[in-house]
């Protein structure tokens, strides 16, 4: 039995509406949201985005970027300091009773009483849920059936993640929040979870997931946003996000060949003999570079050319964090530049 069978099941039953009619509906709407903790640290500094029904939206970011702080607000665990959030048309915190039966939540770190068995935990959750999947079925979906009688405290980290996922699926959610669903899973477990998430998405479930695995976002997400210091720095489809960031060429010049000899049109940046070129036209730039190297008889050491990729885009953003950490505006109490009228979800140009 594969995930495809699961999809077919849903299709045969005709239980999910036509994709066209559905994509127009906004299921998650986040507008100008900020979240400060008691100690004054602002973890989310004005975030806006929306997710349509049936869409899989990924929030990417380095540790501490504000992903979990954002998702917790969507899950209705806390109120934002300012801004509005609607999930399925309701405030997930104030109108909890209207939202919860239709959502499923997997926290980044979920807690379960350690002395209950897996099955007892799933049963408890199932009995607390409207129109729930039977506990056994939820466990089967995540491949935990054989561990049903094991106490939670004896589970491995990966198994705990899968139990958490089983509970998130118990409500047959329309909207599923997954906070780093595959952290701690081995390669096989990760692939299984991906298959399951894809299957859920295919069946019409709206999924919002956070991850710091680029591969995960790239292979699963319809759209993604990269968070950085509490703000969304870049958002769009994978193609859109990568297109905004140039490709790069790196190499080391042999001693005696100054970087200044490289043709100006290549706009090379040099650190001693190490050279980096950023370009939006990789093939042309490479052609020019190699032509110059051949004519000048220069050997380019450790030549490495990379086309624009999500990883490159992400690393450029992560690098800026390292450089500006000391003056992270969130660490000095209330932000000064917050009221300057700039839209929070504005795509910023990030220079590495």
């Amino acid at each position, binding site marked *: 039995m594969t995930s495809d069978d699961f999809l077919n099941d849903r299709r045969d039953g005709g239980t999910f509406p036509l994709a066209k009619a559905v994509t127009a509906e906004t299921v998650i709407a986040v507008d100008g949201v900020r979240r400060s903790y008691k100690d004054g640290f602002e973890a989310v500094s004005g975030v806006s985005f929306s997710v349509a029904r049936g869409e899989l939206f990924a929030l990417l970011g380095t540790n501490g970027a504000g992903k979990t702080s954002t998702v917790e607000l969507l899950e209705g665990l806390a109120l934002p300091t300012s801004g509005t959030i609607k999930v399925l048309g309701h405030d997930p915190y104030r109108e909890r*009773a209207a939202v919860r039966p*239709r959502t499923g939540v997997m926290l980044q770190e979920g*807690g379960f009483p350690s*002395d*209950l068995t897996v099955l007892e*935990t799933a049963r408890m959750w199932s009995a607390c*849920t409207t*129109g729930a999947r039977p506990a056994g079925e939820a466990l089967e979906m995540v491949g935990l059936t054989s561990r049903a009688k094991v106490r939670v405290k004896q589970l491995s980290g990966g198994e705990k993640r899968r139990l958490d996922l089983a*509970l998130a699926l118990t409500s047959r959610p329309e909207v599923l929040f997954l906070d780093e669903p595959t952290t701690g899973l081995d390669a096989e477990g990760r692939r299984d979870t991906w298959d399951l998430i894809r299957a859920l998405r295919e069946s019409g479930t709206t999924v919002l997931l956070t991850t710091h695995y680029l591969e995960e976002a790239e292979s699963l997400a319809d759209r993604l946003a990269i968070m950085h210091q509490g703000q969304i720095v870049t958002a769009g489809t994978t193609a859109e996000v990568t297109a905004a960031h140039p490709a790069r060429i790196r190499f080391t010049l042999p001693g005696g060949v100054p970087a200044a000899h490289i043709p100006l049109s290549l706009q090379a940046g040099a650190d001693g003999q190490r050279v980096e070129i950023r370009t939006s036209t990789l093939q042309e730039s490479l052609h020019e570079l190699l032509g110059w190297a051949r004519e000048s008889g220069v050997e380019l050491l450790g030549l490495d050319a990379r086309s624009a990729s999500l990883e490159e885009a992400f690393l450029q953003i992560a690098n800026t964090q390292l450089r500006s950490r000391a003056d992270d505006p969130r660490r000095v109490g209330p932000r000064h530049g917050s009221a300057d009228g700039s839209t929070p979800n504005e795509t910023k140009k990030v220079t590495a």
Partner: protein
Amino acid sequence: MTTPTTLADGRTAPERSLSPAPSGWSASLRRLNALARAELILLIRNRSAIFVALVLPIVMIFSIRASLEQIDLAGTGLSVAGAALTGGIGIVLVQVVYMNLVTGYVTRREELVLKRLRTGEVTDREILISTALPSVALAVLQSVLLVVAGAIAFDLSAPKRPDLFLLGLLVGFVMMSALAAATSAVTRTVQTSQLTTLPLFFVSLFASGIFVPLDVFPDKLAAVFELLPLTGVMTLVRHGWLGGVEGGDLVTAVVAALAWTAFAVFAVRRWFRWDPRG
């Protein structure tokens, strides 16, 4: 990872949003029942907690007896056995319900169990109540044991005013659970709960009539002590069990007990922390 064939549930999203969730009480009871079952399983598996909860009050009753023998009870109308056993119920309320539960709420919070439960349909109130159930169940069991022990071993009668006795117990359970939840808000770790529970522990033991009947104190002091959280509950329990009720004292007791309960509930709603970070 296999996916079962029985996944399709025949419900579409729009359909579901039209049909209202099963309303109010029945759904709430169903959830409480599910949580209570899980709590019961956990309680049965935690043998050491049961042992401590059952043995400690017995030890305490003997120390109450020892301290009572130093005091002239002639003016109080209480026998040593009567004072010790009703004091035992006070001990149960403070130790088994209050102190146990502070640890319970803090543990569940720090292990993120409370946070996880809050992501589902269970309401905050249901989470707090279900967490309190095992401790309250133990306390009920011990109260019954004390009454039975009083009848068999100490020649005490069954409670003379069972209505007052039960009212005292009920208010005591609710107040102690709520005060425990409120105390957990100022308790960072399980270890510090041994510290944060001490004020109420000592105040109740020595000034709420558990160790020493209030009649022993000077009138003015006793009048102040009557306003302490557990004093009203102790008055109800003691008079409910042993008799000798006076109308005025009783009203003061009920009002004080209910006022503290209301304050505790308010404090929980206002300050309870669900998340270690929150």
